[in-house]
């Protein structure tokens, strides 16, 4: 159990800088997810915590001890790799026992630890198998087993579920979360799947091209995205954006439609702004604004409608069943309290 502090960390490969000063504080026992589009530097940051990449500038500390110059094996961390990196020539038992035997732990204690980990992960029947004799999900569990036998201070996961099929991914997601609740070991988990991030994390770090865009609890990011990037990245289906300006205490879109503002924002008067509203925050209402329906997609629990609204194509998700045909007009309105306004120039959330 440990805290991890990442302070203004930069990483350069040759002459290109891929992390531009990242700072994240991770509490003891927290499940933190690094999420962001491909190539934004998540793996690089994780590998820097592990000690597999050196730190170009800034500091990483585990439990108040700065580890910039500490060898990986002294950091007391365990990592689950995206491709699992199981030793193909060792049985499941030996894979899990490897680190303990290198630490010269007595044989009986190694056995005990391996049994414990195998019990937690349901790997008992497979202890004598080789990795090639296991399914993807079982291999994934062995990789986790190899991490938990050591009882490390911090777990690092690099996209551990990306090689699994959709159904198994959902199952393993729950298993990892449950495992964390049971062991309460500080965990840093990398993914590019925002649903994984939303469902598993205590705290999400949204990254974009080498910068941290926002750090917060999943629902915090959903409710109050700091900027256009986070607004568009968190939540599925993604938030709709409408361009316009703030005039007379209301939002006026480029085609002249007036939308209600979530809060009075006098300072925004006259500046170009972006109005954001999530698909699920549109409501059908008789006195709403007209929207021309293009596509209706009933999923059972909700109905998704693609429509032109205030001159922009938007996606709406209604709890109600919508019977409108393409080409027809429905009347909808954004929920006032749940919409967002961003500064078009800076992309930052506009707070009055």
């Amino acid at each position, binding site marked *: 159990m440990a805290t991890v502090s990442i302070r203004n960390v930069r990483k350069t490969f040759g002459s290109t800088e891929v992390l531009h000063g990242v700072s994240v504080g991770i509490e003891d026992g927290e499940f933190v997810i690094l999420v962001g589009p491909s190539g934004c530097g998540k793996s690089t940051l994780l590998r820097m915590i592990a000690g597999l990449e050196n730190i170009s500038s800034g500091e990483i500390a585990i439990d108040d001890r700065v580890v910039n110059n500490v060898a990986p094996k002294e950091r007391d961390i365990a990592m689950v790799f995206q491709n699992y990196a199981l030793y193909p*020539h060792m049985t499941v038992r030996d894979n899990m026992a490897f680190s303990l035997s290198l630490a010269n732990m007595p044989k009986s204690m190694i056995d005990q630890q391996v049994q414990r980990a195998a019990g937690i992960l349901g790997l008992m029947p497979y202890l004598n198998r080789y990795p*090639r004799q296991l399914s993807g999900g079982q291999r994934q569990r062995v990789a986790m087993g190899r991490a938990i036998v050591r009882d490390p201070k911090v777990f690092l996961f690099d996209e551990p579920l990306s090689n699994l099929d959709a159904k198994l991914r959902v199952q393993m997601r729950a298993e990892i979360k449950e495992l964390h609740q049971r062991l309460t070991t500080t965990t840093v988990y990398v993914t590019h799947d925002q649903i994984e991030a939303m469902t598993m994390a205590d705290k999400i770090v949204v990254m974009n091209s080498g910068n941290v865009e926002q750090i917060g609890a999943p629902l915090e990011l959903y409710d109050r995205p700091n900027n256009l990037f986070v607004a568009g990245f968190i939540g599925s289906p993604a938030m709709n954006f409408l361009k316009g300006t703030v005039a007379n205490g209301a939002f006026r879109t480029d085609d002249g439609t007036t939308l209600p503002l979530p809060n009075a924002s006098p300072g925004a008067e006259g500046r170009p702004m972006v109005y954001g509203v999530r698909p699920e925050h549109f409501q059908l209402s008789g006195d709403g604004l007209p929207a021309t329906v293009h596509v209706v997609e009933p999923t059972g629990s909700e109905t998704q409608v693609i429509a032109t609204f205030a001159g922009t194509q938007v996606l709406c998700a209604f709890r109600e069943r919508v019977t409108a045909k393409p080409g027809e007009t429905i009347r909808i309105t954004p929920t006032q309290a749940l919409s967002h306004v961003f500064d078009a120039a800076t992309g930052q959330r506009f707070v009055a």
Partner: protein
Amino acid sequence: MDATVDVGLQRLNFVRAPDTWVTKLFDYKPFLVFLCLLPSMGLLVVFLTYPLGLGLWLSMTDTTIGQPGHFVGLENFQELMDDPVFWMSVTNTIFYTVVATAGKFTLGLWLALLLNHHIPFKAFIRAIVLLPWIVPTVLSAIAWWWIYSPQFSIVSYVFVDLLHWSDTYFNFLGSPWPARWSLIVANIWRGIPFVAITLLAGLQTISPSLYEAALLDGASGWQKFYRITVPLLMPILAVALTLSVLFTFSDFQLVYAITRGGPFNTTHLMATLAFQRAIPGAQLGEGAAIAVSMIPFLIAATLLCFFGVGRRKWQQGEAND
């Protein structure tokens, strides 16, 4: 649509003539298998079985060049049993194979490990490593012959004329043990590229993330080498070892070009002795008998290498529980 199907069926029925003995024969599976194997069996017979059979036959005759021989049974082999030169060639061959193979694999593995890291001028070094393999053996043998020459040796020149460490030129090939070691050095030099390049290919199949995982698991450099690299390299090592032992055991060119078995037949390998007796000595039967006596050694060495270090349970295609 139904109509076309009907027509098709009718046509099928129509074509299906009553079985003749030809169709019956071709429908008979063993015959078909035999027929399909015929081309490759033919090649094997012409290029492998015939020469091998001829060798075996010759070894049991008293054929000399220009004179068809008579069957003499195992007489040639009995004579070899009492032939000290033959026995020396056997011990020479075993010594030569064991020492040279050990040398080749130690240096080859070391080079492969070096080349598997990021080092400057990697491509250049790799090209240089391949050189001994590319140069025709006879050419390199002649080069070594010059290096070992009593009068023109560059080694002697360096030590005597440049460094003044010694007064007399070395006589590398003049006495048995220096000559044997000289041959082994030349053979190691010649064999390193094969070992280094093969093992390098093997090293490159090992995923770097395994080393990263081992690093996090707390393995030192040495532990990574013998707990990850060596076991994962074993399958390819076994193949390389088998081939290398076979090449070395049956080596002819280097020895024949450098020493011709001399001084006084003390550096003969079985292959060079067989040739010596059969062609310059004209005793075809006896030469063939020596060559045939290599076969059991070769089979034993192959089996040992292949089953000793090859085939691991964790590899594909083998059940273990």
